[in-house]
């Protein structure tokens, strides 16, 4: 993979799983319909007997996966994200979490991918839900290199894993595989900086990456962290960022409540409280529309992320007066985005 190259994450997932399945005979793929949309066509062609179809049966498929895992298989259940997370939540919690089964749930086309299909198909609460399950690992890779490594790590890890995958093409952000020290529970510092830390995850990572480039060109020293594991969190890296930069901005294609923003805030509020801003979906059902437009409607385009950081810095920078300044800036920002809608 070359830096800057755009890859379809579903296809990348399917290829990574197939490569693993060649050397791990325990791996089986479970589909709740739309297997090709999950990137599983090459797997199905190569291992038809290990590709198990369940149709639009999103509760049942989780129980079947749990049962398969008790016999030593490593099931990867892939489907459209809300239908393997919110829909069968109790099965995921009990049959995979409580029963501690070695099943990998792959929610694809997650986030605002299905912007045009509306809130029934958008998946912006999956991380919040699955993060509450004890023992569940939550992986949200943000570039194709992280994604391949996340698939490998998920297969290697013994226990339930949620792997969140988008579908719009995402750029390769790393120079090489060696440049990406991915591990479960580890964040990755992509650029150093002392003024503010910008944390991106999943499909929001490349946009945070672009925003960080813009800000650095303006002379703002932004530290950029990729956080491809939302559970367990990289406690040391996050506390270090809070301590050294004093300000944190999170960016995600998910509700900030319960998502990356919520998770980081939960940690830092107890360990090292610093001012934060959270860019992501707020408490509403987003509108339907073209993907890029819906991202803009939620403040998730790179220029909006950069602006959020600038406003945060100017508010925090003006000390005593700054408090009122911060309030003014935020209110104005909200008014502006309200008018845009």
């Amino acid at each position: 993979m070359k830096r800057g190259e755009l890859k379809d994450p579903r296809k990348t997932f399917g290829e990574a799983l197939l490569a693993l399945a060649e050397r791990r005979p325990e791996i089986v793929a479970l589909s709740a319909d739309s297997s090709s949309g999950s990137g599983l066509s090459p797997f199905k062609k190569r291992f038809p007997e290990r590709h198990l179809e369940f149709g639009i049966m999103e509760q049942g498929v989780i129980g079947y996966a749990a049962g398969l895992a008790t016999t030593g298989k490593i099931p990867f259940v892939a489907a459209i994200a809300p239908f393997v997370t919110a829909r069968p939540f109790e099965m995921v919690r009990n049959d995979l979490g409580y029963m501690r089964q070695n099943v990998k749930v792959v929610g694809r086309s997650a986030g605002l991918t299905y912007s045009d299909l509306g809130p029934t198909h958008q998946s912006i609460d999956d991380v919040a839900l699955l993060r509450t399950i004890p023992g569940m690992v939550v992986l949200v890779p943000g570039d194709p290199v992280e994604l391949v490594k996340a698939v490998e790590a998920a297969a290697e890890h013994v226990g339930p894993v949620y792997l969140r995958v988008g579908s719009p093409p995402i750029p390769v952000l790393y120079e090489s595989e060696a440049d990406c020290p991915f591990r479960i529970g580890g964040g990755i510092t992509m650029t150093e900086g002392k003024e503010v830390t910008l944390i991106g995850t999943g499909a929001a990572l490349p946009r945070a990456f672009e925003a960080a480039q813009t800000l650095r060109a303006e002379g703002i020293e932004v530290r950029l962290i990729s956080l491809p594991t939302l559970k367990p969190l990289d406690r040391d890296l996050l506390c270090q960022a809070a301590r050294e930069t004093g300000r944190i901005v999170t960016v995600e294609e998910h509700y900030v409540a319960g998502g990356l923003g919520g998770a980081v805030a939960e940690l830092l509020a107890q360990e090292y409280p610093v001012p934060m801003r959270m860019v992501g979906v707020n408490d509403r059902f987003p509108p339907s529309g073209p993907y890029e437009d819906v991202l803009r409607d939620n403040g998730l385009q790179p220029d909006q992320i950069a602006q959020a950081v600038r406003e945060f810095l100017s508010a925090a920078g003006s000390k005593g007066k700054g408090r009122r300044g911060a309030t003014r800036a935020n209110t104005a920002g909200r008014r502006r985005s309200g008018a845009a809608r």
Partner: protein
Amino acid sequence: MLTAAEDLQLRRSALQIRRNILRLIRAGKAGHVGGALSAADLLTALYFQAMKIDPLRPDWPERDRLVVSAGHKSLVLYAALAARGYFPEDLLDTYGSLASRLPGHPDMHKLPGVEASTGALGHGLSIAGGMALGLRMSGLASRVYVVMGDGELAEGSNWEAAAAASHHRLENLVAIVDRNGLQISGLTVEVMSYEPLEERWRSFGWGVQRLDGHDFGQILKALQAVPFQPGRPSAIVADTVKSRGLSFAEGKVEYHYWKPAPEELAQAERDLDWIERSLAG
């Protein structure tokens, strides 16, 4: 065919299981007694005759599996596992205590022989189906039995699981419906009708037999006939009596969950003593 001696032996085992259920309730001071006692003879037939198991090797890969989908029947599962020697019967006296290895609904990580952590209704058949599929893919001839309540059949997830089991031709999967006809708020068919039950299973592609769930001859004859149809999963609709064995509670909805007064517990002991005397004769 079951010999008279085998039948007598099974009745004695079933009595031991019923005594263990009372022991659990005495320890915990309450429990889901009705559905435990209605399924007691079914579990006796499975654990003491039909299943290929070794209590000393609960993780033996080639074992048959039993999933109690209606997890509130945990009392009969604990009672049967203890009677079969999976763990010492003394452990039954910890039921109801803090962090007991015998929680109100079974936890597969706390006790040997518990194959799935059930309790939320409508999960067991999917889990059992996955086990059956995995065993077949691994080339093992083991069977998977799943004991379900009839009230539980209102959960749509069961019918997802039933469809997938016939689609994937799981002839090593056996569902047993403990059809005691009662659930917490009344007659099951009045709370949410499921009749014609056998036709339902048949229409989902299962082979079906209906029998008396307290008749060991009938139960074992059916279990020996599995799969009822080649290439299909098998469903047994077992007519049972809720709280079977307790004279004052049989067929009464009030005994779904039982918090016994001392005089009731004493009567329950006398009822089981009476069964014991009838077996001695």
